[in-house]
């Protein structure tokens, strides 16, 4: 019974982590760029929920608006922050990504509030269900179900559509893909749009745990996504998912086993384990596509 509880905890946390990591790595794989503004895509979806909460629309419609807004924000990231400096050094692009992240956070501070704002949650999020004698929030099962659907959809997109095949190709030989007629801008914008879609969905699940949104809400998911991709292999999509679940396994195991007084140091234990994993596999667990230059 305890094991079932543990499994549900790992799977639900891992589902959220895996989606976060996938949203970060889809851009990294193509641009070789850690998009530090990724956390703000999650924030945008959260604030959209807050802003439309008075509209009286059904929750699903509000959720769709929120996800749509983070997709738009993702594409805007490309146009505003990256396209103008894409041919410059990696340092320039990295700094732009930090700047855009700070800009969005400060816009939220200035125009909304530094204080937490409530986000509407569907009634089902606060219900609990019992399976096999284990009582668990329905939210956890919803998270798992959503991740299964999203990962399935994502995998279908990458394998069965020409756009997906082109994106995988661009991740290994960007210039060659262009010489076959694949437009660079289409691939990069698509990557940012998918990143935004995943961030939006993650946002609903993540904020669903706490019910409020603050300007810095995106920092933790960004950090989790980053660590998960480092463990899994920065350039591998499968690695990102694997890394997400592994990180959730580590976190949950520590939650279950650490004595109360050590629990506040959990992250120190987590990172120690991450260091061990990286000493063993410096390139992450799954190697990405062979070589390839930045564009």
């Amino acid at each position: 019974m305890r094991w079932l509880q543990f499994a549900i905890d790992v799977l639900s946390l891992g589902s959220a982590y895996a989606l976060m990591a996938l949203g970060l790595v889809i851009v990294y794989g193509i641009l070789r760029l850690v998009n530090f503004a990724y956390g703000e895509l999650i924030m945008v979806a959260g604030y959209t929920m807050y802003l439309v909460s008075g509209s009286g629309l059904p929750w699903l419609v509000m959720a769709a608006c929120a996800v749509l807004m983070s997709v738009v924000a993702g594409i805007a990231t490309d146009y505003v922050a990256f396209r103008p400096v894409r041919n410059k050094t990696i340092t320039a692009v990295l700094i732009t990504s930090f700047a855009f992240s700070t800009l969005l956070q400060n816009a939220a501070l200035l125009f909304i509030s530094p204080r937490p704002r409530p986000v509407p949650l569907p009634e089902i999020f606060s219900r609990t269900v019992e399976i096999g004698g284990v009582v668990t929030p329905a939210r956890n099962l919803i998270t798992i179900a959503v991740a299964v659907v999203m990962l399935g959809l994502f995998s279908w997109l990458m394998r069965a559509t020409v756009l997906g095949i082109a994106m995988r190709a661009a991740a290994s030989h960007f210039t060659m893909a262009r010489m076959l007629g694949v437009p660079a801008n289409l691939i990069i914008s698509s990557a940012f749009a998918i990143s935004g879609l995943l961030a939006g969905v993650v946002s609903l699940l993540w904020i669903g745990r706490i019910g409020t949104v603050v300007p810095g809400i995106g920092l933790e998911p960004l950090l989790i996504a980053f660590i998960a991709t480092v463990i899994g292999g920065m350039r591998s999509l499968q690695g990102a998912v694997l890394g997400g679940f592994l990180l959730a396994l580590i976190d949950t195991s520590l939650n279950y086993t650490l004595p109360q007084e050590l629990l506040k140091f959990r992250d120190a234990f987590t990172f120690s384990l991450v260091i061990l994993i990286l000493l063993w596999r410096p390139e992450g667990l799954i190697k990405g596509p062979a070589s390839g230059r930045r564009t």
Partner: protein
Amino acid sequence: MLEVEGLEVRYGAVRAVRGASFAVARGELVALLGANGAGKSSTLMAIAGAVRTAGGSVRLEGADVTGQRPERMARLGVATVPETRDVFPDLTVSENLRLGAFTRRDGAAEIAGDRARFLDRFPILAERADQSAGTLSGGEQQMLVIARAMMARPRVLLLDEPSLGLAPVVVDRVFGMIAGLKAAGLTILLVEQNARKALSVADRAYVMRLGRIEAAGLAAELGTADALKALYLGSDA
């Protein structure tokens, strides 16, 4: 079909191509010969739009296409096979071929038909259709990239060093493939260090040295000329 005039390519202070001019007529196979570092590949990549031009012009059927982006050149019907032989290693052979048809707007059935024809013609590729392209041998990868380029139904094919690093028997097979494409009426610009091999399939050839065109002539004449040896062509020239 393809006219290059006064083409210049620079990498920082290095002038890799210094005013190269040549032309390829419709249905012709023209070889661009020269030693390593003569500027052949830079010329080819500049035509493809993958390397920036510093001067001169490239015209495709009379229209100026100088400095176009690579995806635009592909759309205009110029297919490029770079010497780095870039298969997409994590994609299957079949997916690689599918991507070759990216610019085509005719139906999926037509594209699938072309893919089936290529797989028919190259049984080795057919056997490995669902295998990732990174697991193919060098010769198989070369055939795959040429087949992939042909999936676009291009008007002009730019081929860079197809013999590079391949065993002689495999080189023969690849050149058999190139001769077949020429026989089918395709316009081809072939960059090669292996002059004898290139001249065996070419109609005409230009010889590059230090970024300039040093000699030009019919393949049959150049193949026998003593000048060829003087120009430091491939070791077996």
